[in-house]
């Protein structure tokens, strides 16, 4: 329990809700007539509205990037390490916005929201949304906040993919793009992992074809397995070895199927803390958004061509031990950027934390992040 909040935190924050009445045409051909986005803001917007930073979240996070919702919160927002006074995304100089993506389960319209037409949760009828659709919804949010041009759009993992899409779809509306631990599209292996996660959820007897809300249940077993699988891919082999090795909880093997190895205990803990806070239909949607992401596709698969229209200055970061979105994937983005003579800097951080490193306070990562954020601050007029 945090009775007093750390001085370098944005402190207590309250989410806001934006009602959007504009039609949102989705990549799938479907439309959303009305929707809501839940978002948080930290720091002060300056008079020229030129110090705004949009943070895009990854697969399982949400609009709560920093601070605490109450003094009883055990944990702050998911990017507390990087958003706050004196931190790289310094709320003393930037106005930071983060929204829960459409299809999410933290307050923005998604599968667990009531469908106004039926009075029941959307469930599987919620349309599949793509990264492009999210960017469109972010544009609605930008307009509502009166922000014509973001000083930067920043994101890690699936968040980084949104940044890339942003820079292609709305080149005039962001000055800087910070893309961390991302990829220009998923590999077959990435999609394979997502498919196993989806199958785990969809074959759970409690899934009820996605209508589990009406049965007052949820496919908890499937969601747990999906989360455990995800966590394996977020860590590196080295880090797992370092953290758990073959350590046993009880010191000796017991020849049964209870939790024996520390790594099993870790995965089960991660799974337990996920169920109840995350909606299985949203998980399915998010993995689909990942699989479908391929901004180069409309340009004959040529990312350099896709980025011809981009205008932002880019900062790309990867982590050496990230095998989910390996450095080579970030270098593909970097190549497409310098092919177009765009401003780009690229840092490859040597760490063993794997994909999850983008959330962690790693000294060299913090150093380059700070340095680049200073550049962004210097460009604010």
């Amino acid at each position, binding site marked *: 329990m945090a009775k007093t909040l750390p001085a370098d935190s944005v402190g207590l924050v309250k989410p806001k809700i934006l009602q959007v009445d504009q039609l949102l045409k989705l990549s799938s051909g479907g439309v959303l007539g009305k929707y809501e986005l839940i978002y948080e803001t930290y720091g002060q917007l300056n008079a020229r509205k030129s110090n705004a930073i949009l943070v895009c979240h990854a697969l399982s996070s949400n609009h709560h990037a920093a601070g605490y919702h109450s003094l009883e919160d055990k944990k702050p927002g998911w990017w507390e390490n990087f958003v706050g006074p004196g931190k790289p995304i310094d709320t003393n100089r930037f106005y930071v916005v983060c929204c829960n993506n459409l299809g999410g389960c933290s307050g923005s319209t998604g599968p667990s929201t009531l469908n106004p037409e039926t009075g029941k949760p959307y469930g599987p009828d919620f349309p599949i949304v793509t990264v492009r659709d999210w960017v469109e919804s972010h544009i609605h949010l930008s307009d509502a906040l009166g922000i014509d041009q973001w000083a930067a759009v920043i994101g890690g993992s699936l968040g980084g993919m949104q940044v890339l899409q942003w820079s292609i779809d709305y080149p005039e509306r962001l000055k800087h793009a910070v893309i961390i631990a991302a990829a220009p599209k998923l590999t077959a292996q990435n999609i394979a992992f997502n498919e196993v996660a989806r199958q785990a959820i969809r074959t759970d007897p409690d899934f009820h074809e996605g209508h589990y809300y009406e049965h007052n249940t949820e496919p908890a077993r499937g969601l747990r397995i999906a989360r455990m699988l995800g966590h394996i891919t977020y860590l590196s082999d080295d880090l797992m070895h370092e953290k758990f090795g073959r350590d046993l909880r009880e010191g000796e093997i017991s020849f049964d199927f209870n939790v024996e190895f520390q790594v099993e205990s870790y995965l089960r803990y991660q799974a337990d803390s996920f169920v109840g806070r995350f909606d299985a239909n949203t998980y399915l949607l998010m993995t689909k958004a990942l699989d479908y992401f391929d901004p180069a596709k409309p340009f004959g698969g040529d990312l350099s061509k896709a980025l011809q229209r981009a205008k932002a200055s880019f*900062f790309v970061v990867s982590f050496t031990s990230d095998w989910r979105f390996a450095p080579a994937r970030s*270098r593909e983005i*970097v*190549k497409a950027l*310098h*092919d177009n*003579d765009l*401003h*780009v*800097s*690229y*840092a*490859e951080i*040597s760490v063993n934390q794997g994909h999850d490193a983008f959330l962690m306070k790693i000294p*060299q990562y913090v*150093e*380059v992040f700070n*340095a*680049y954020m*200073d*550049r962004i601050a210097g460009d604010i007029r």
Partner: protein
Amino acid sequence: MTQEQLMRPDYAIIADWIQPKSRVLDLGCGDGTLLSHLAKNKKVSGYGIELDDHNITQCIRSNINVIQSDLDRGLSEFDEDSFDYVVLSLTLQAMHRPDLLLQEMMRVGTEGIVTFPNFGHWRSRFYLGVLGRMPVSRTLPNEWYDTPNIHLCTIRDFEELCYKLGYRILERRAVDHVHKSSLGLRLFPNLLGQIALYRFRRI
């Protein structure tokens, strides 16, 4: 920044060779001093490639476009003829395969600019020939066992490699450790030059 303030005098010569508004790729760009000087004084655009973490941070702070990468992996992420100049200053001798990197330079750039410590300098010869020891000097300060400089060469060696690879040398300078040239250096570059500077292109 003015030319006088450039910390490394070889940079002044390189900067002199580079045409305004050209596109430059600086291999092993360090803290970005050369690129930043070229951007300010010659309106040059381009990228630096660097491996060292601290230098990466410095480059970002100096508004340099820097890409963290190991030159020994080559330049495969750059297309043919992307740059007017590819610069490699005092880094050639630290490469695993200098010949391959030179070929990479000439693939992505029109002209190459290379500077390296000349192992043919009389002091090196004295160390080897008279003292029978591996040379240690101001430009090559490391002991043989912990040096990053694993492929040292002389002015003659370098020129022979350029000939073999089919490169035409457009300019050559041999300078002493304060990067001054003199009549002696022009007459006996391989004996008196501590640093060699070359500008070359494909024939």
